[in-house]
């Protein structure tokens, strides 16, 4: 096994996009890897690791620490990674790797596949013929109490009234939040009836997404490839008219091709 180099300068590494079954070089001939590098498939015990060469100046440990702070770099790499994973998903069952998994040579890739062979096979069995859908639900909560300085300008009575009003607004907002959370939980469970597997992700920060309302559900479902899940979501969501529901998919099975602990 190769030793880890002290310096990455001028060295080539292998970026791993995904591990799947039934994927070969020809199937990926029309898709490019990062920085337009050609994709290669490394076979090991019936599994196919999709890789391309990367410069370790850019993708080594130091390069990653530096570049992951750069949003444009991150977006470019994430979209290329996703495009490769989608191409592989179109050919055979695919377990996508987490962003920025880099090995130093082919032996290291194969030794990883060897080490995780059982869990990989089980993950691929789980996602074979299935796709991931994202379901997000948003609620319009009661307006938060207006921020401002305590209204003390009109004497003690005004101050007490202000505090009472603030308290009432806070209570209303909390109640509204609890109702929305309850609705979201019910929707999440109702949709689970139609799914092979489900998973809740953290609600997204509105500063990142600029969504309106409060995201009360950010869920992922694993669905049989031919099922009309978007229609199912639309039908179920009509039972909770207070929620705005968005379904996106199909995705590669990012949230479900996970490896159990060995």
């Amino acid at each position, binding site marked *: 096994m*190769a030793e880890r180099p002290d310096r990455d300068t001028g060295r080539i*590494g292998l970026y791993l996009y995904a591990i799947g079954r039934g994927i070969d070089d020809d199937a990926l001939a029309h898709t490019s890897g990062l920085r337009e590098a050609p994709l290669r498939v490394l076979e090991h015990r019936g599994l196919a690791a999709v890789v391309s060469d990367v410069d370790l100046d850019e*993708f*080594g*440990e130091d390069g990653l*620490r530096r570049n*992951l*702070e*750069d*949003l444009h770099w*991150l*977006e470019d790499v994430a*979209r290329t990674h*996703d*495009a490769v994973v*989608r191409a592989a998903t179109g050919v055979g069952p695919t*377990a*996508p*790797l*987490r962003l*920025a*998994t*880099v*090995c*130093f040579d082919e032996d*290291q890739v194969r030794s*990883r596949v060897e*080490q*995780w062979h059982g869990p*990989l096979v089980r*993950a691929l069995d789980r996602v074979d013929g299935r796709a991931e859908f994202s379901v997000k639900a948003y609620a319009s909560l009661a307006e938060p109490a207006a921020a401002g300085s305590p209204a003390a300008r009109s004497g003690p009575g005004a101050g007490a009234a202000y505090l009472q009003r603030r308290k009432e607004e806070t209570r209303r907002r909390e109640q509204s939040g609890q109702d929305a959370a309850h609705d979201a939980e019910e929707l999440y469970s109702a949709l689970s009836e139609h799914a092979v597997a489900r*998973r809740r*992700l*953290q609600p*997204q*920060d509105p*500063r*990142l997404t600029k969504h309106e309302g409060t995201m009360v559900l*950010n869920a992922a479902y694993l669905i049989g490839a031919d099922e*009309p899940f*978007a*229609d199912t*979501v*639309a*039908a179920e*969501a*009509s039972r*909770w*008219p207070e929620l*705005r*529901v968005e*379904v*996106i*998919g*199909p*995705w590669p099975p*990012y*949230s479900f091709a*996970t*490896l159990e602990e060995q």
Partner: protein
Amino acid sequence: MTDTAVAAQARTTLPQDVALVDLLDRLLGTGVVLAGDVVVSLAGVDLVRIRLQALLMTVRGPEEEL
């Protein structure tokens, strides 16, 4: 079953339409992790921290600290 009265919006996405935040939710938060000393990949926690920092920097501008 495309009833326009229902609240859900369904759309089939092409890769370029996917919101970056949705993509990073998946590429950084889940996915197969091949742990081991020979894999150059930062710990999940580190990546999440970096992700939020990078994105929030862009949203808020670089002058504001997290």
